[in-house]
């Protein structure tokens, strides 16, 4: 089969993208007679060419688009020439459909950026170029369209190309091939134009057919994220996945990340035969020897060069959610085949898409680009996106709606300690706690309302004080009277509530205190966010557990009764979820244990 080149075509609305694709399809004989006939009929109804066939109607497929004459979603077309097979993504121009544009660009090897010769390089052109570069496209062609309308003016073309090269260089796209074209007439698309004797370069199709694509480096280490564990019977256990980089052969030594177990490849199963090798891009099933424990989301990798593993990252984000991104809000994250909880711990900056300047920002709105720090609920194997699209690209998923809220690329991992210690003073946290003869830490009690958090917290603090410890108790309700008086119960406010409490707890631990936090904190990602602020071991997640029915029966403040009557909205356990801790440091069953027994268990764990 002919090699496939995947390309994305982008530009502002009305620059002529749809017309260009229609022309490429037609001129390379990819349009069937009946499809052309249909476009001719449609042209009479919706066309912009006064009844002449509007080639844009070959690709503008959705009813809304035809009625409005704009392209709202990316359309994919396959075309073939004797040299190559092309999958063309026709990306929408409108700013409000930027997420669809990013969808089209993310799988492309090459981008054709169109500009209208009369309008020149627009802010939207810069935006597209930035997104294209961010999602990993390294080859860019600038198609200066509608040259027929400016009389094939060479000087104007060169000026435009120069202006665009500046933009491209700024976003990290080194080489740009510029071509003067007319989508309407087909000049310089599939055949050289008589109008441009001064243009020494190729036609658009000629370039697409011959451009050398950066081949994946031969010497990349082997990596395969596991998609599926195939276990038809006790004798066969295969790990299915697509090779993200490198190559593999039976006998090769492997390391399973993040667990770090090792094994060697026993066989490579593809259909009825086994194979003696597989390489980047192949979908295969591996069997290992010995048969170690591997799950979906793990990465099987070359033992002598395994991937990095981390749980805090610096990343670029393009925001696609209708709700803005704010620090502290919990999401699900998909990174290769791995799904984990994730929370943005801070927004470093927003990028101005037109000139690339970095602006301070408290939130990222729909279609914004920015850089963030991000923490995941557990360590995951990854690679910087620069090295691997497969192991460095991720999406963030809204937990309530399951919508894809953002896409990101990992720049590098952050060291946890580097992230926590923001300024070195002579007196360190260790000194402060040593002076109090104790080990400072944060004991985070999570659980439903009326599960027993306050009771346990109260008795625990008394017990610690009796033993001569220096403590402080942060209680959810009390904090809302002061520090968090300005916050309500909307989702951003709840997130901010937790963020402040966690930050205060961190300062107090730094001051050498044993801090008891008694907070419902219903989301795992919130608790993970808090944990991420502390050194390992300085944070204990204690799950105060009692069944919902029991809590509702206890109901000391009458809150459940109110919530059931609908008088309180978003009440955890009633109309708002409580995510049970995935791996608490300690779980206290308050249905069976007395408060004294709970305190004893905590003291035991702290010893």
């Amino acid at each position, binding site marked *: 089969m002919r090699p496939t080149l995947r390309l994305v075509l982008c530009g502002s609305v009305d620059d002529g993208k749809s017309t260009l694709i229609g022309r490429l399809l037609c001129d390379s004989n990819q349009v069937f007679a009946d499809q052309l006939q249909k476009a001719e009929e449609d042209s009479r109804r919706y066309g912009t060419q006064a009844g002449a066939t509007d080639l844009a109607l070959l690709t503008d497929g959705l009813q809304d688009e035809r009625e409005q004459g704009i392209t709202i979603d990316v359309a994919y077309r396959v075309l073939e020439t004797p040299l190559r097979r092309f999958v063309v993504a026709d990306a929408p121009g409108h700013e409000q459909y930027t997420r669809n544009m990013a969808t089209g660009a993310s799988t492309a090897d090459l981008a054709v950026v169109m500009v209208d010769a009369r309008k020149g390089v627009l802010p939207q052109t810069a935006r597209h170029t930035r997104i294209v570069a961010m999602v990993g496209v390294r080859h860019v062609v600038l198609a200066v369209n509608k040259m027929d309308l400016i009389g094939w003016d060479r000087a104007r073309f060169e000026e435009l190309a120069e202006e665009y090269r500046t933009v491209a260089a700024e976003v990290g796209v080194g080489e740009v091939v510029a071509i003067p074209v007319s989508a309407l007439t087909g000049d310089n698309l599939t055949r050289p134009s008589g109008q441009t004797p001064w243009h020494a370069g190729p036609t658009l199709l000629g370039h697409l057919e011959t451009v050398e694509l950066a081949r994946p480096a031969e010497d990349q280490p082997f990596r395969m994220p596991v998609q*599926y564990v195939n276990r038809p019977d006790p004798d066969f256990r295969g790990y299915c996945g697509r090779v993200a980089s490198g190559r593999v052969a039976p006998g090769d030594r492997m390391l399973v990340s993040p667990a770090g177990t090792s094994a060697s490849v026993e066989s490579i*199963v593809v259909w009825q035969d086994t194979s003696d090798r597989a390489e980047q891009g192949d979908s295969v099933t591996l069997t290992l020897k010995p048969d170690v424990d591997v799950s979906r989301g793990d990465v099987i990798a070359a033992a002598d060069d395994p991937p990095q593993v981390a749980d805090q990252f610096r990343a670029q984000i393009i925001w696609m959610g209708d709700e803005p991104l704010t620090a502290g809000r919990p999401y699900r994250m998909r990174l290769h085949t791995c799904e984990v909880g994730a929370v943005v711990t801070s927004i470093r900056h927003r990028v101005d898409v037109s000139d690339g300047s970095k602006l301070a920002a408290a939130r990222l709105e729909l279609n914004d680009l920015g850089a963030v720090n991000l923490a995941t609920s557990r360590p995951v194997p990854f690679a910087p996106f620069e090295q691997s699209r497969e192991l460095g690209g991720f999406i963030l*998923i809204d937990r309530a709606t399951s*919508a*894809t809220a953002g896409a990101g690329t990992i720049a590098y991992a952050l060291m946890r300690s580097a992230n926590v210690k923001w300024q070195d003073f002579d007196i360190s946290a260790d000194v402060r706690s040593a002076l109090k003869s104790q080990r400072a830490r944060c004991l985070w009690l999570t659980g439903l309302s009326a599960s027993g958090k306050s009771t346990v917290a109260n008795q625990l603090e008394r017990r610690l004080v009796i033993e001569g410890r220096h403590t402080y108790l942060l209680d959810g309700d009390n904090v809302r009277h002061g520090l968090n008086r300005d916050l309500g119960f909307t989702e951003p406010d709840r997130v901010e509530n937790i963020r402040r409490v966690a930050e205060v707890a961190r300062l107090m631990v730094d001051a050498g205190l044993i801090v008891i936090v008694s907070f419902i904190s219903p989301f795992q990602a919130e608790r993970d966010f808090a944990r991420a602020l502390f050194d390992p071991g300085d944070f204990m997640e204690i799950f105060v557990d009692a069944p919902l029915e029991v809590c509702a029966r206890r109901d000391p403040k009458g809150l459940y009764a109110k919530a059931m009557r609908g008088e309180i909205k978003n009440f955890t356990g009633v109309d708002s979820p409580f995510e049970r801790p995935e791996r608490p440091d300690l779980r206290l069953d308050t249905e069976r244990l007395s408060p004294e027994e709970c305190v004893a268990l905590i003291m035991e764990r702290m010893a």
Partner: protein
Amino acid sequence: MLESEAIEIIREGVAAATRPVMLYSIGKDSSVLLHLARKAFWPAPPPMPLLHVDTTWKFREMIAFRDRVAAEASVELLVHTNSEGADGAVTPFTHGSDYYTEVMKTAALRQALDAGGFDIIFVGARRDEEKSRAKERVFSFRDAAHQWHPKAQRPELWNLYNTRLDAGGSFRVSPLSNWTEADIWRYIAAEDIPIVPLYYAAERTVVRRGGQWIMVDDDRMPLLPGEVPQRRRVRFRTLGCYPLTAAVESTADTLDAIIAEVLAADRSEREGRLIDHDGEASMERKKREGYF
């Protein structure tokens, strides 16, 4: 590359699914899809049943082929017919093709999917078939009423498919999205995949109707005044209900000949499907209503 991509998509779907199913139409795309699913999970059989919506008007050769292939692949075969339209109550002859399709295909499919509670539904759709399909995601979200919302499609970045369905609904998953008709034929040849013999040219009994060749597959087909069944060398580019599927005159009786014919063709294959011509944006509308 196409094969590896399709297998990756099938595995992602199965990994995410609670109740996966593969819609099996018996056509060449379904044959390729089933073959890919077998490869994806070999040596296990595909971990999902096949679902065939039987309108009772399929070509007889298709039904025989279906039963043979399912048995050979060791997959469970589910067959559903809309009881409302069975026993000759709704036929392509007594009702318009729009209404017939709505009852015997669209409604029947919804019934079968609801009954099975399927959340991941593999289909053999290709983006080159039709314009609204060219815009559909690989994992295409459908709400609880099986409706497609073309304006609110989830972004689909790289090969990261957001397969979460916490708020209900289902996905139509199209592993063959980036294949063309020619790709399908080349792959069938390369992998030696069995297909229904109707794809190969042979002498068949047909009548001329509405400017197209319609096969007289059984004696339920009423002849119109002036129609005379005749023997012609024909084949089918696409398979469906025999009264609604036109044959083309052809001598292509080998895969190589078919591929040569496909590459030289100037009519797209859906032209043989009479339902597509029913109206403006017909396929998008049918899809919004739940036809896949």
